[in-house]
């Protein structure tokens, strides 16, 4: 019933809109700028998911679409109204061009937009009829070379300063030398005779000092030696260069994409999982280019984001012009950053789903990292410390109901650390 009502209301609106359009048709064209602005907003809200202005997307490029249709097919705006509002009806009616488009696109239909009035469509068409603006300087055209230039100029200044200071130092030295020569020649310089034993000799002769110093030296070297050995195999700060520059800063930070949208297996599996490329393509089918602002930010990091997206297309075999997977996929060989030894069993779902630990607790402020690095040392001591300090999350899990009751009764306290629940036992992680 709802549907029928809806249709009624729409036809009413359409009727009113038509009347309005006929009445104010001249004023609409006169409005110009306003119509284009309105059209842009409508385009972005309704059309941009499938259409781009200048490139083939799910649907064809729309710049100058009306003129094109007029020219090539002799179709007028009325046809476009029908097509946009209900393309399937048009196809069913056997319209020649509508059927042709339908066949050419693998029998995929364009979504119907009955909510758009003719006026809206006019606005959109006004927007699409705009000429392409000449490219703005910088932006997308910037290449890493430019980045280098910027760095180069900074370095130049630094070098110049270094040379300058060097010259200054040399000058001072020469002045000093000359003055000294004069002083010697004038006999005004008093050369002091060294008296007593030099300090190092005194030091060597003092056995107590030698012994104390040796002890300190040995202790010191033991300390640093131990420190060195303990960091062997600890790769904190490991930040390898990945085959595709993927910015967590943009995805998790700016765009606020939930971590587990891509790393979905962290919820159920021991692995957090590196997302398969089809997950990337969920969004990147439509995002072939980043905005100019983002591209400009890339300069800071020396990255051309658009080129990185192309790498993704390369890997998946996606052809953006044909909007289809045409080439053989080439799986991406990511460099694994967080490596645990084989003899450790770590389960993401235990920590993420059960304990409710934030990803950032172990992985750091990943949403701010342009290039991901290993935030935590991943040593056993680090694991154990967290187990000692963290309260077990009993809430909302029927698994813990009975156990928690028993514990409360027995020990008279409400919260328990993971370590008190057996999280320090060897066999919980080593098997």
């Amino acid at each position, binding site marked *: 019933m709802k549907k029928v009502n809806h249709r009624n209301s729409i036809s009413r609106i359409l009727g009113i809109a038509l009347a309005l359009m006929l009445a104010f048709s001249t004023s609409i064209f006169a409005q110009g700028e306003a119509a284009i602005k309105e059209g842009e907003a409508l385009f972005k809200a309704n059309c941009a998911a499938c259409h781009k202005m200048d490139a083939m997307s799910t649907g064809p490029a729309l710049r100058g679409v009306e003129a094109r249709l007029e020219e090539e097919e002799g179709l007028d705006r009325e046809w476009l109204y029908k097509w946009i509002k209900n393309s399937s009806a048009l196809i069913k009616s056997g319209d020649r061009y509508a059927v042709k488009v339908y066949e050419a696109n693998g029998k995929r239909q364009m979504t119907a937009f009955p909510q758009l009035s003719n006026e809206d469509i006019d606005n959109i068409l006004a927007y699409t009829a705009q000429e392409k603006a000449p490219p703005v300087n910088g932006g997308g055209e910037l290449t890493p070379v430019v980045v280098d230039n910027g760095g180069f100029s900074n370095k130049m200044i630094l070098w110049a300063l270094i040379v300058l200071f060097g010259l200054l130092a040399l000058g001072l030295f020469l002045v000093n030398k000359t003055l000294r020569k004069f002083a010697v020649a004038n006999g005004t310089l008093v050369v002091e005779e060294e008296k007593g034993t030099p300090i190092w000799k005194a030091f060597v002769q003092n056995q107590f000092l030698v012994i104390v110093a040796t002890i300190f030296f040995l202790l010191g070297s033991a300390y640093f030696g131990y420190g060195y050995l303990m960091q062997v195999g600890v790769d904190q700060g490991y930040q390898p260069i990945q085959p595709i520059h993927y910015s967590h800063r943009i995805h998790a930070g700016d765009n606020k994409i939930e971590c587990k949208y891509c790393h979905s297996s962290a919820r*159920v599996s021991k692995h957090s999982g590196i997302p398969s490329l089809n997950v990337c393509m969920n969004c990147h089918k439509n995002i072939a280019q980043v905005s100019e602002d983002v591209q400009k930010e890339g300069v800071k990091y020396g990255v051309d984001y658009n080129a990185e997206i192309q790498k993704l297309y390369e890997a998946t075999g996606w052809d953006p012009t044909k909007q289809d997977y045409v080439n053989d996929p080439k799986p991406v060989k990511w460099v694994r950053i967080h490596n645990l030894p084989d003899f450790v069993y770590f389960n993401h779902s235990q920590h993420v789903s059960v304990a409710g630990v934030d990803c950032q607790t172990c992985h750091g402020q990943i949403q701010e990292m342009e290039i991901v690095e290993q935030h935590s040392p991943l040593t056993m001591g680090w694991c154990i410390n967290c187990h000692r300090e963290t309260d077990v999350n009993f809430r909302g899990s029927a*698994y813990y109901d009975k156990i928690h009751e028993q514990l409360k009764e027995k020990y008279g306290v409400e919260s328990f650390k993971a370590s008190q629940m057996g999280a320090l036992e060897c066999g919980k992680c080593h*098997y």
Partner: protein
Amino acid sequence: MASNKKYWKSVEELNENSTIVETLRQNEFVEEVPVDEFLGDKQTLESSSTSRRDFLKYVGFSTAAATLAACEGPVIKSIPYVVQPETIVPGVADYYATTIADGYDFASILIKTREGRPIKVENNKEAVTKGSANARVHASVLSLYDSMRVKQPKIAGADASWETLDAEIGQKLNQVSASGKQIVLLTQTFASPSTAKLVGEFKARYGNVNHVVYDAISESTALDAFEAKYGQRALADYDFSKAEVIVSVGADFLGDWQGGGYDDGYAKGRIPTGKHGQAKMSRHVQFEANMTLSGANADKRVPLSPSDQKVALAKIYAGVTGNSVSGRKLSDKVEDAIKKAVAQLKKANSKAVVVSGINDVDAQSLVLAINESLNSEAFDKDAPRKIRQGDDKAVAKLISDMKAGTVGGIIMAGVNPVYTLPNGEEFGEALSKLDLAVTFTQKEDETALKTKYVAAAPHYLESWGDVEIKKGHYSVMQPTIRPLFDTRQFQDALLKWTGNEKAYYEYLKETWTTEILGGTPWNIAVHDGVFKTTAEVSLADEANAAIEEAEANQTDEEVGATAMQNTDVGAQARKLASTPAASGMELVLYAKTGMGDGQQANNPWLQEFPDPITRASWDNYLTISQADADANEIKNWNVANGGLNGSYVDVTVNGQVIKNVPVIIQPGQAKGTVGLALGYGKKAGIKEEMQTGVNAYKIYNNFNATQNVSISLAGGTHEFACVQLHNTLMGRGDIVKETTLEIFNTKDHHEWNPMPHVSKNHEMIDATDPGADMWDEFDRSIGHHFNLAIDLNACTGCGACVIACHAENNVPVVGKSEVRRSRDMHWLRIDRYYSSEDTFSEDVEKKENFGGLFGDNGSLGGFVEMEDPAENPQVAFQPVMCQHCNHAPCETVCPVAATSHGRQGQNHMAYNRCVGTRYCANNCPYKVRRFNWFLYNKNDEFDYHMNDDLGRMVLNPDVVVRSRGVMEKCSMCIQKTQKTILDAKRDGRPVKDGEFQTACSAACSSGAMTFGDINDKESKVAELLEDDRMYHLLEHVGTKPNVQYHVKVRNTKEA
């Protein structure tokens, strides 16, 4: 304390005039070391481009470089899917239902896959019939990753493509078809309705096609008998859980008799149930020659030679049916046993069942007649088993046809006749002369070497298929991995060669939806893996009828003759009763639990699997009784390193000699008989390490497992890899406790399951009394506390748990010579104990009556006597793994705290912490710890599955692969218990009883192993803990194990 003794190191020193001795007193070397030769040559030294300085530089640099390189971690790459399949989540296992049907083993199973790799076999609990995997089925997942598999089709030994193969074979099939000669399909038993239908279509396409079904180990006589009586070529099915009295004459029904898989039903009836005083369990009497699993589990076992068994069966028939049959008199003991067995059978009537493994149509007919006359509930003739269909006569005719040259072409699938036929070489000759000879095989085996076209066949885990295990009980086989190699299954090839463009999957689906499922969706059948229907399915019978028709035409006379015989069961009984006693030795050929018919001989898990009875691995051997061994001067003895040595004999059957067969003296072997296992001695398509034993198929004449044989002692000594040193229990009743049903019912459990006492302040208190405890107790009352209960009554010793443990825990294979040094790595062993007297209680009595050290009753001589297993010992199986003691002796002696105790009752072992002192193993009273003496993976010295990339695919990614110098042991499958807990936590629910499983308890279909949480008072295992039969191993040591055992009860009631 001056001594005039002269010490000497070498005989040479005794010779006073020896110049060498004199020289050696002065110099280190007898001859001067020619230093000048290389240092004196100044010219060469100077012309050398490498100066000493350079040399040191290089050494220094490479050492430094190696050191630095070692500090740098390797760069590890991760490659995700491009498009991730929906069902696969890395790190989470998927299970698929499928079916094994390799012609010998048939079972509905689940396959655990990780990241698309099958890694373990589990039982399919949905399946009503054959839903449990035996040791071989558990190991079959490793055979998938066999590096010796045929990787692509071959023509005359050279690699070829399927296109060429199709073209050539297609052309030749037409030629042969046109020439009027017969085309033979020689296949294993498929028991597959779709395949049968397909073969029918193939016949229709090519006309003169003869389908011969060939089982390497034949059950043809039983099939013939069943067919003659009920008109269907199948085997009667038995449900031993319904039987109160089981009499078996030569049938190892707990082994592989008639397809096996009877142990679950049997075990159900073996657990004494009911109130105290009225507990009931089945009574099992076994007449047999070899000591088999069934004999070992029997309440009464009568060793009897095969020719005597026939007479005994005739007498049982006479007794049960009341017909008089006069057979020759057997020994008094046997006659008595038969009389009592008959009395019990008659008393139990419909609750009784008789089975026989005698390869004789008369004997098998008699069994059917006896069960009919008993009206046995355990006997099922209406829904018979279809998993053996081999026809000896057809195979014999095929061989004569091939010799006569009337065979134009042969297509073989799943068979290896050149190896498994006694006249295999002859067959091979005939085969190599055939222009059209095709074999579908996974290995380049003996037959493949003689066959022109070798069609690479996929493993069952890469194939589609269906099986009708018994009438109305269907199973689906689905692939669980993409084919690893360029293989094609037999059915797909048949489809192609009949000009059908469909894939076998489509064909299968179509057959099922139209003719079997009757409305049930196909996807449900694939998901469950099994489908049961009572509706008559016409298609299989049609195909069968077609086969039978063809057979009837060929062997009209023979069938007629059989029918004549079958008219009178009485006559058959009389014929059987008149079997004369064998003049010489009788040989009984059998299949070992680990090896079966030998298809999986290249599987290291199975080679290293110790036989449940002899406990020997990596071998087959002649089993012989002590008396016959003495008569032939055959010896077995243990050497200093614990290894078992034995004599060799030459075995002669019908002029065919097998030389150098090692002999094991088998307690309980019937006098005048010897046993030898089939399935060994393979040479082709198998790694050198696995080429073990002798090929007993060479003397498997006329498909009869019983042969007249003569043996003669040969020279030399054989070294066995036998893992059980102690032959008997020697009255150590506290390890295996057993009692009789009568005592169990009438007496208090303190009498038959006594608690050991220890002395405290000169007073005897219970060993489990808290006062006897010197340790502070952990608090285990909150959370989980795991226990594993093992019921010695239900354990048949089948060994499925041993292989399941291997697969789950990445237990390495160490090879024959290491096993011989008792360095086997099995985390779970099944100890087998014999009694030296007829019963264990007599053993205990004897031990307790020892008086003094010497004399007639002296313990010194007495224990030696007790080491000697009796002629007919009683046998007990006891699975032993880490007992996970609450007061573990191993934990206190570890200098690095590598082994520690968990609150959940598991004894943890941190491998990376272990430094290999082996103190723990020395301090373990149960001897369950295993030491990695070598690196067993990626080591050419141990060239088993862990040494190649393919074989390593079977490893469980959740369990670490241990390195050299590390102790390991049963972890009570902590990876599984942790996973169960995590799943429950994630779902936010308590763990249900039965969810906790270890690999062994999940594999145990007989219900002998129960695992669970004793803090869950409702759980089965908590209930078992309170059972009267419960005891712990070596309770008096005070280790408080978390593994319970349940006293074995025997039903010794004779009448």
